[in-house]
């Protein structure tokens, strides 16, 4: 088992390496010049050149790339060009509001979706199933931006059930997070419900369920106990795979609801060519991807003895 995990982790290294190459090319070769942002509207070309030298942007690209790899290996990305804060500190600070929004939203979405999927699978092919699935597709067909604009206007202003905008650090923030969470829930539920339903429908067709029926197990029991338990692996897998997206945050929600999270940090960094932040962000997310894929594999192995780790 441990050997398997180590092997998988080693296999992840080329991926992270690939990510560093792509991001380096995208930003150092094609991206904007951060120095201009520092110097502002009255900078002269001489001053720009001096500052480029100070930050080492005038060195050969290969040299700059090696330095970048060094940062990745030591996991020390230095300080942001813009805020002069330690990049890892910044990410920590920004990840909290993002996670406070996305984790409950993911859990709620998964829980509700699984419940609805169970109901739909139970009534497979009947009217209830069709209506539920139609609503799922309906929910998927509206633009995210429209949900936000309309949701904020109607649910926070016209009928002031929720807060319009704001963020408070600490436990008080929940009241500001409900509406964005609700929007995430509605957007995510369409996809998840359909996915989980098809898993359950697939499980229902399997031999063990037929055997259970043959043994006289009632239909609800077969579905809710046997099928749900076996579908759990795939449900947890799907949740695992979304872990990196929890951290990336939601740019639009953050912008409309004033949540100082990872999405807005990334956009600011992109707009200001704040390379240390961009680099740290992409490397961290790619590592998360590798790790969450690994965990998914391991989980499969633990739950399903038929999968052999080899």
């Amino acid at each position, binding site marked *: 088992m441990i050997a398997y995990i180590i092997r998988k982790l080693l296999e992840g290294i080329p991926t992270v390496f690939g990510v560093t190459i*792509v*991001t380096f090319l995208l930003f150092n070769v094609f991206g904007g010049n951060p120095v201009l942002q520092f110097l502002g509207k009255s900078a002269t070309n001489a001053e720009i050149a001096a500052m480029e030298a100070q930050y080492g942007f005038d060195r050969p690209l290969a040299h700059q790339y090696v330095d970048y790899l060094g940062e990745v290996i030591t996991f020390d990305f230095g300080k942001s060009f813009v805020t002069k804060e330690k990049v890892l500190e910044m990410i920590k600070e920004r990840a909290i509001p993002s996670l406070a929004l996305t984790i409950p939203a993911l859990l709620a979405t998964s829980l509700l979706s699984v419940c609805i999927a169970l109901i739909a699978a139970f009534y497979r092919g009947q009217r209830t199933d069709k209506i539920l699935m139609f609503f799922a*597709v309906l929910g998927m067909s509206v633009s995210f931006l429209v949900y936000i604009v309309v949701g904020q*206007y109607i649910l926070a202003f016209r009928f002031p059930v929720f807060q319009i905008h704001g963020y408070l650090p600490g436990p008080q923030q929940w009241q500001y997070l409900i509406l964005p969470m609700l929007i995430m829930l509605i957007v995510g539920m369409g996809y998840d419900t359909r996915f989980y339903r098809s898993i359950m429908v697939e499980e229902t*067709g399997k031999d063990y369920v037929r055997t259970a029926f043959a043994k006289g197990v009632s239909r609800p029991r077969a579905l809710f106990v046997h099928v749900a338990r076996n579908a759990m692996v795939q449900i947890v897998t799907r949740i695992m795979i979304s872990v990196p997206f929890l951290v*990336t945050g939601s740019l*639009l929600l953050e912008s409309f609801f004033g949540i100082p999270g990872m*999405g807005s940090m990334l956009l600011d960094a992109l707009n200001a060519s704040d390379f240390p932040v961009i680099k740290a962000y992409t490397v961290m997310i790619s590592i998360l991807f590798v790790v969450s894929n690994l965990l998914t594999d391991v989980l499969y192995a633990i739950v399903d003895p038929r999968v052999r780790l080899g």
Partner: protein
Amino acid sequence: MNLISFALIAGIFTLALTTITRSPRAWRKLKKDRSALFSGAVIVVYALAAITVSGGIIATETDIQVGEKFLAPCAQHLLGTDRLGRDIFTRVVYANKIAFMVGIVSATAAVIIGTILGGLAGYFGGWVDSVIVWFYSTIQSIPYLLLLIALTWIAGKGINGLYVAFCATYWVGPCRLIRGEVLKLRNAEYIQSAHAMGMGNLRILFRHIIPNTLHISLVNFALLFIGAIKSEVILSYLGLGVQGEPSWGTMIDQARAELINGFYWQIGGATVAMFGLVLAFNIFTDALQDAFDPKAQKP
């Protein structure tokens, strides 16, 4: 460009029809599914509208002032006017063409790239497989939005930037699926016998294996088409969307502050138009998937 989009729309429809009719069982099943037929018809109507716009027959003038600004919907202007006094209905119809262009070009390119790479990886295995798998895991591990934004910087803003950005990120999905399918198919008996007959590898792959994965490509095409149309809204919000022409994304984006004043028709018109197409595509794709492979999981 108009001719190209026309050709693409026509091409996709032919391909879709041949793929569907290749499998008589799927075709029979699809024919019986009334909601699938209805949504298929809706897609055809949207596509015809897009072709008509491409041909310069309707919605030719999207940029002229036809009346006062912010006119409410009336008989003359079905969806009222925007802040520049332009007819919103005309713009919504025109934007449908843009949606088709963005959807079709990005999805076609992504599916073609994905099919070829996935086929090569699955068929040859070994280092070819390793390199292609490495490449798509890399692309997949970069935050999607960051990649899109960076690519539109490089490819330039506007519709061409969208094509490049979507294509470069979207090929991963079909590539994975086709690779998996080819892995299964390459050991099939008929392939073994083709080998025995001394057929070349590429010929076997492209003449005998890939055609049997077309239904996967078709379903992926539809999913990516929807994805592109929906992502266009988000990129428009970031100022990276279609420029100089109306698109549903830019229309929704430009009207995002107008709702408070009660000017709901621009955001509403674009949303409903987009909703209709995406919904029809969603339902149709479902039916397709059911028809070909009832057991497949829906994404």
